[in-house]
C-alpha cells in the first residue's frame, strides 16, 4: 500500500515538474537572430535577463527576455551591469523557447558599436549542443 502511494506521488510530482520545466526550456537545436532595442539588463544571480523590445514585420513591438548566467559567470567574459544600456540597438543570437513564448537563451549579443558579447566561451571544434541544464 505504501509502495503504491509512493509510486503514484512520484509519478505526479515528476509530471508536474516536467510540465513546469518545459516552460523554461529552450530549443538548443535552433539558433535565431533577433534585432531590437534594449529595454533593461537585469544583471543578477542566478540568471541574468536582457529585456529587448523587438518590432515584428506586423509593426507590433514585443518585449523579449533573453536569459544568461549570473554575474558570477558573465563578469568573466567581460560583461558588467552597464554593458547594455536601455535604448541601445542590439542584435541577439539565441536559442528560442520551445513553446514559442517571447524568450530565449542568449548566446551572443552584438551592440551598436559592433562589439560581440558571448555568454559562453567558444566551444572546442566538433563539440555538440550547448549545455542541457543550468547550474
Amino acid at each position, binding site marked *: 500500500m*505504501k509502495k503504491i502511494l*509512493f509510486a503514484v*506521488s*512520484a509519478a505526479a*510530482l515528476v509530471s*508536474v*515538474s516536467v510540465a*513546469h*520545466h518545459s*516552460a*523554461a526550456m529552450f530549443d538548443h537545436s535552433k539558433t535565431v537572430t533577433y534585432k531590437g532595442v534594449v529595454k533593461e539588463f537585469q*544583471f*543578477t*544571480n*542566478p*540568471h541574468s*535577463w536582457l529585456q529587448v523590445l523587438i518590432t515584428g514585420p506586423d509593426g507590433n513591438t514585443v518585449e523579449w527576455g533573453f*536569459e544568461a548566467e*549570473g*554575474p*558570477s559567470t558573465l*563578469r568573466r567574459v567581460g560583461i558588467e*551591469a552597464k554593458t547594455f544600456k536601455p535604448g541601445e540597438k542590439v542584435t541577439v543570437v539565441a536559442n528560442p523557447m520551445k513553446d514559442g513564448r517571447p524568450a530565449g537563451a542568449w548566446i551572443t549579443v552584438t551592440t551598436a558599436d559592433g562589439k560581440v558579447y558571448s555568454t559562453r566561451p567558444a566551444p572546442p571544434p566538433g563539440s555538440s549542443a550547448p549545455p542541457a*541544464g*543550468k*547550474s
Partner: protein
Amino acid sequence: MQSFFQWLESWPVSVGLRESSWMFPAFESVHVIAITLVVGSVMIVDLRVLGLASRSERVTELSQAVLPWTWGAFAVALVSGFCMFAAKADAYFGNTSFQIKMLLMAAAFVNMLMFHFIPYRSVHSWDEGASAPPLARLACGASLTLWVFIVLMGRWIGFSIEG
C-alpha cells in the same frame, strides 16, 4: 504581497546575492551542505526506527545525540534559504518547484510532530531492538520519502526559475 517582496528584495543581503560574483554560490554551498546534514541525520534516525540500521543502539540515545545537530543544520539551511529567496522573492514565490518544496517541508514538519507526540511517547517500550510500532514506522518511512522529494524539488528550482 508585491510590496512585501519588493521590501525583501531591497535588503542588502538580497542585493549582494543578485549582484555579487561570489555571494550566491557561497550561500548555495552552505545551503546544500546544511541540507545534506539534515537529510543524512534524519535518515540515520528513520532507519533506526524502521529497524534497518544501528539496531544495537537505543532509539532514545541515538535520537538525543543526533537530533540537536539536525535542528542546528536545519537552522543554517533555513537562514541561507530565506536569504536566497529574498533576493528574488517574487520569482521564487511563483515557481512551482519552490511551492511544492515548501509544501513538502510543511508535511515533513507535521509528520515529525505527529511522530513525537504519538508513537514516540511509548518509546521506552521499543527503545531496544527492532520493535517500533507501525505508526512510528509509517512516520519514519514518510519522513524518508518526503525528504527525498524535498531535495528533488530543490534541485528543480535551479532548472525552472525564471528570474
